[in-house]
């Protein structure tokens, strides 16, 4: 019992002494925490690689790559609390919930920590700025550019979208139509809808090949549609004749690139995303830039980001994947 009491006393003394100790620990390095939705996801591991690259370029920057085990807001809040306790300089987070993280991130900002969100955003009051991987206009331009690049003499292209009411796809197709003037000789013959179902997308792609025998390319701005269309083209023995392109995931599209059904496609590059998030967090935490509407923040090799009225901005064009880099990325995401 006595031993027991002594231990209690010792713990009490430790606790008491702690209450007077200060948090001021000398820090040479700037510590930037890259908080992801959950650990063990290829996309985010790649983002961490980009963050390390940025840290190497900047020098004196330590990256803390962390996140919960499951994609829960509560798990991320525990992570944020421990980062606040460590008094890190900046938190760059891909959020599991745009609202539930706000109180915890507000507390971080009150304690002088720079907070930005990237990939999946946080509501405006919970962060200083948000980094979007791309913008609707850039995506709309990219999907038609991917097709046009392989058609120097012009040609017929068709769009295989998700559902007719899919917000994202409709915006991207609208944006694409706006820039059609930049691609003379390219004619969009029709838009069909595969409803983001593999079998329906496959049949729609077959239908396109029958209805338009001179078709040169199919643009599918959906990761389900692009895989199904590439399969349909390959099964019809038209690989090399009809180029399937759009937005897809490298892991799912590696086969189509190999067979020649797709020459190239695009999606965000997680390495660039982690790199840019780190660059922005560093610029804000070291007061080299301000997160205000209209301000410009340097992102190293990725150029400069311009913030809009919601203090969010677009990083870059979607990244193009083709036979030269598909092997590197197919194992990542």
């Amino acid at each position: 019992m006595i031993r027991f009491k002594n231990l209690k006393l010792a713990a009490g003394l430790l606790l008491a002494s702690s209450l007077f100790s200060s948090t001021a620990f000398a820090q040479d390095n700037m510590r930037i925490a890259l908080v992801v939705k959950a650990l063990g996801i290829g996309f985010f591991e790649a983002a961490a690689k980009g963050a390390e690259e940025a840290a190497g370029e900047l020098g004196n920057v330590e990256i803390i790559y962390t996140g919960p085990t499951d994609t829960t807001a509560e798990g991320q809040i525990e992570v944020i609390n421990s980062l606040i306790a460590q008094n890190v300089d900046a938190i760059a987070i891909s959020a599991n919930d745009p609202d539930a993280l706000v109180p915890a991130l507000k507390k971080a900002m009150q304690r002088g920590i720079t907070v930005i969100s990237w990939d999946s955003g946080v509501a405006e009051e919970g962060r200083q700025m948000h980094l979007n991987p791309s913008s609707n206009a850039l995506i709309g331009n990219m999907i038609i550019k991917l097709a046009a690049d392989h058609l120097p003499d012009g040609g017929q292209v068709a769009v295989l979208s998700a559902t007719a009411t899919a917000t994202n796809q409709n915006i991207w197709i609208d944006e694409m139509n706006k820039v059609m003037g930049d691609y003379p000789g390219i004619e969009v013959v029709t838009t069909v809808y595969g409803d983001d179902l593999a079998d329906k997308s496959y049949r729609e792609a077959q239908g396109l090949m029958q209805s338009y025998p001179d078709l040169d390319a199919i643009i599918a701005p959906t990761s389900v549609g692009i895989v199904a269309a590439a399969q349909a083209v390959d099964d019809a023995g038209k690989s090399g004749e009809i180029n399937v392109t759009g937005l897809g995931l490298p892991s799912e599209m590696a086969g189509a690139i190999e067979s020649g059904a797709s020459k190239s496609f695009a999606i965000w590059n997680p390495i660039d995303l982690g790199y840019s998030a780190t660059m922005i967090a560093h610029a804000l935490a070291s007061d080299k830039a301000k997160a205000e509407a209209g301000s410009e923040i340097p992102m190293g090799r990725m150029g400069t980001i311009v913030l809009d009225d919601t203090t969010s901005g677009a990083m870059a064009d979607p990244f193009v994947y083709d036979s030269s880099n598909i092997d590197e990325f197919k194992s990542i995401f």
Partner: protein
Amino acid sequence: MSGSNTATEVANVIPDRIKSRLEQSLKSWESLLMLVAIAIFIANSFASPYFLNAWNLSDATFNFTEKAYIAFALALLIIAGEIDLSVAAIIALASTAMGAAVQAGAGTPVLVLVGLGTGLLCGAFNGLLVTRLGLPSIVATIGTMSLFRGISYIILGDQAYRGYPADFAFFGQGYVFWVISFEFVLFVLLAIVYSILLHKTNFGRAVYAIGNNPTGALFSGIRVARVKFILFLLTGLMAGVAAICLTSRLGSTRPSIATGWELEIVTMVVLGGVNILGGSGTLPGVVIAAFVMGLVTFGLGLLNVPGIVMSIVIGALLIGVIALPRLWSKWKHR
């Protein structure tokens, strides 16, 4: 089982305690756990320069307070030989109900009533399934676990309820005095209330009796079904309390709120020395277990240890703390 030991002094009653009080308390589960907690505390303060800081330790308590509220009530339920796995789903449903009330223009007092009321209703539903229909509690509450959270998903889908009134934030984000948060004060109060309920009242004795021998308890004049029903009500009520605090801390409601908490709460109860088969366990044990789990996760978090490693550590701790006393007694009786 401290307190009411006057019975042992009556000659014709078989003593339920043969060792001295001192020896017993030194070798008790609680002392062992306390040692573990102190060891973790000391290890943490050496491992990270950020650990011994009043604000940081205060932040760390949020990792376990809400779960502990439920663990207190669940400890009683488990001692009585039943279990409730729907507690996290009750949080989701109670939070959703509060969110709906906010949309209807309810103020903070109404929100608290809605949260507590939803918890009570869910607890009553579980209690009826078990005591009236005679379903095994593990089956019944696995069912209601899906049911309650399912209702939240139907109401909310991929949407969220926001716009909680500013003063509602006090429950999950407010401080009563300096670094002492409201949640921590509530934790201490509930720990005292449940300790008294379990260890100092007839109701508490009935809980142990039911857990050890429900038939015997029934023939001793204990209204077994009624006690069990009250325990389910209390567990539901505590889930409602946790829902209020968690919702206030998050400032929003999604149907995925508190996902996976039921197992963490059961872990807390078992780590606290409560026999999962019922009949034994103490409330102070659960209180210390709450601290142990909170200290471990926060300490490892400060070292940026990945969450999966934390789960492994908690698992190892659970097996270790349960296995050690058994090995010890085997070795002694050899």
